[in-house]
């Protein structure tokens, strides 16, 4: 997300507090299977679906979803990644960031149904940036959004089409997504952010 804090996901806990698990490995697998079925249902067969994950964990989720879609439809689903760093609205607030990889599948996104995949939906600013980035790459037939966790607190008129788990949170809480590819294990942890940091950020 476009927020300047790191309360979303992936961040190793600054103070070592692990947080309370809200989704475990098997839950994540079940949730992704359900989202894959929903995509097939809503896209009436998912013939022209292209999955684009937003780095870092969105990419792994997109790849897992692609595998599930292939199981359901019997066809491989194009999957790639979309780095949004250069499109962020908060670039000037922080030192320049390293870029991640943008990998568009061979046939491109022209006329396709692009499903953006991210781990946590929070302010919505990441998705705003992703839509801008997408506009420079081609003109999809439609764009949809799949997220593992929606933690609320939107700052832009953006919503997800496929949500793994709605997780009402306070701004003092952190949501941390762990995926085996990146963190060695699967899980979603709800923690409390250090008070000093919270005052600092907001």
């Amino acid at each position, binding site marked *: 997300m476009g927020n300047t804090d790191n309360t979303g996901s992936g961040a190793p806990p600054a103070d070592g507090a692990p947080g309370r698990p809200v989704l475990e490995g098997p839950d994540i697998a079940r949730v992704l299977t359900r989202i894959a079925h929903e995509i097939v249902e809503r896209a009436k067969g998912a013939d022209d679906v292209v999955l684009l994950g937003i780095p870092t964990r969105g990419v792994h989720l997109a790849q897992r979803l692609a595998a599930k879609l292939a199981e359901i439809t019997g066809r491989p689903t194009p999957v790639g990644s979309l780095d949004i760093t250069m499109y962020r609205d908060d670039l000037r607030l*922080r030192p320049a960031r390293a870029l991640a990889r943008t990998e568009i599948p061979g046939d491109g996104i022209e006329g396709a149904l692009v499903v953006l995949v991210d781990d946590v939906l929070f302010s919505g600013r990441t998705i705003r940036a992703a839509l801008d980035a997408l506009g*420079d790459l081609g003109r999809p037939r439609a764009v949809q959004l799949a997220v593992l966790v929606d933690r609320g607190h939107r700052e832009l008129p953006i919503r997800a089409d496929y949500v793994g788990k709605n997780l009402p949170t306070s701004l003092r809480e952190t949501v941390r997504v762990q995926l085996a590819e990146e963190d060695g294990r699967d899980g979603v942890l709800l923690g409390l952010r250090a008070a000093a940091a919270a005052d600092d950020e907001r």
Partner: protein
Amino acid sequence: MERHLISAADLTRDDAVLVLDTAEELARLADRPIKKLPTLRGRTVVNLFFEDSTRTRISFEAAAKRLSADVINFSAKGSSVSKGESLKDTALTLEAMGADAVVIRHHDSGAPHRLATSGWIGGSVVNAGDGTHEHPTQALLDAFTLRRRLGTGRGGDLGGRRVTIVGDILHSRVARSNVHLLSTLGAEVTLVAPPTLVPVGVHAWPCEVSYDLDAVLPTSDAVMMLRVQRERMNAAYFPTEREYARRYGLDGGRMARMPEHALVMHPGPMNRGMEITADVADSDRCTAVEQVTNGVSTRMAVLYLLLGGAALGGAPGHAAENSAEENT
């Protein structure tokens, strides 16, 4: 990485790898229908060129425009500099126009440093070649080309690779920057030149010196040929051009003695028949044209890392950590 890019020696290994990794991602832009990013929208980059240049100026201009910055080109010819305006007054003018970055090429060594440290301007200063001092973005694009061709990918450096730089070392800012950067990245650099074209104090540089090109070629992973800079020569550094070409020029026979995978590099402009023969310059192993292409991506990376973040940003290495932690 500091706020300015004056010398390749200022870059740590992590800084340099970050620039190369960023350039690697930006190079992929070339395959897209829209080769432009909105990142530097509303920022002004001034190309301040006191010395002739085609490649570097165009490369910086393309890089800034692909990042959506506004570009002002300023060349000393046809400006108030030819009426005797000083560097300071020129700088104050640019500052008054709100330049966020000044890319400067100057015939005097140290001019970019002066500009960066004088307090005349608030923006970033990028050295695009100063006298016989340094040309850091050329070294970065050379390192980028080497890393791509020699197969160490993202995050990698040039550990253990042997790079030989041949020719007019004395007058070459490209050689100085490359010695610093390539050794920072772990490469073993050997300079080959006639004794008269080896600078005083070279023993303090992180490199070897040889006077025998043929002895070094078989163990080189890349050979970088430098132009003999006649415009900077005010003495007889070697007897004749023919003798220079015979002893220090790269021809087909010498290229055949290089390892199979080894590259021939040239920063341009080339003097065909002098330091490099036409058949070598036109061979597949010569990366001169590729270096120009890579120059745009590398300079985009430099401009992005200097200008893309907060105005007084800290080390981008630190930023890389943050972005990994941050929630996407």
